[in-house]
């Protein structure tokens, strides 16, 4: 494996480890808690992240912006029918898929240009964006959990 791919994997692993720590004591009822009606929920963030792992990352790796994984529901993000257990299982599966896909990737593939929402950039740039989403949304989950505990006077 090239140093570049090894580093991308290490970055992803750091993100997954942080996410695991942030959500280890998460309870079902916290999934839909909001600080105010306009705020986002942890359910939305986790399902969005899972969707990125199952759908956004493969689009980048395949270089196909229109790719849709077979059987992936259109109403996945924010779906209130999903239990925390299901959401966590989907996230875990998404993580495994990502890590496995990275193992197969070559530096030549990373350098291939994609013309997408940030314009023409190497596939690597879009992949880094997708992986940094783990850290980005983990930060948001930590913010919501911190806010909830402060508002409820738990800490």
């Amino acid at each position, binding site marked *: 494996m090239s140093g570049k791919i090894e580093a991308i994997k*290490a970055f992803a692993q750091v993100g997954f480890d942080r996410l695991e720590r942030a959500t280890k004591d998460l309870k079902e009822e916290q999934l839909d808690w909001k600080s105010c009606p306009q705020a*986002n929920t942890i359910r939305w963030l986790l399902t969005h992240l899972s969707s990125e792992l199952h759908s956004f990352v493969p689009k980048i790796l395949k270089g196909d912006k229109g790719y849709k994984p077979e059987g992936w529901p259109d109403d996945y993000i924010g779906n209130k029918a999903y239990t925390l257990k299901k959401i966590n299982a989907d996230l875990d599966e998404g993580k495994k898929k990502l890590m496995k896909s990275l193992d197969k990737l070559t530096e030549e593939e990373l350098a291939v240009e994609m013309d997408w929402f940030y314009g023409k950039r190497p596939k690597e740039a879009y992949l*880094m964006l997708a992986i*940094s989403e783990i*850290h*980005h949304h983990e*930060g948001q989950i*930590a*913010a919501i959990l911190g806010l909830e505990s*402060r508002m409820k006077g738990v800490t």
Partner: protein
Amino acid sequence: MSEKASILKEYAEYVYERFGRTVEGLTEEEMRWKPTEASNNIEWILNHMARLSNLSLPRIIKGDPEFSPEGWPDDYRDQHHSLSKMLKDIEAGKKMVLEGVGKLTSAQLEEEISLWRGTRKRKVGLFAYLGELVHHNGQIAYVRGTYKRLNE
């Protein structure tokens, strides 16, 4: 530049680029807004990010746990700073980080340094703190998203 250093530098560039997009159009008023009295505002997060960029990351790069840029105030954390000052400070930290990371050799990246009450490889510390910047970037996006929806 070593291959590993070039990867980390590229990553750091990406992290700061993402940060730039997140704070685009941010105002002083929005920066000081809190979702609740008990919450952190963006001002607090930016202050923290300025310290991560000017203290934490350069300390790991240099392997000097006491490093502080010349003129950096000891009470930076406790002071209120304007938005433009903190963005300028983060920009200065970014330059220091990118330059410093770019000069690291493969051996230096693998070197064990004092970190978190123990020793860790320098590259581990760099990844963790760059990840911390993205983590806080996410928090800014969360607060901005809430603020935007409240004011729509």
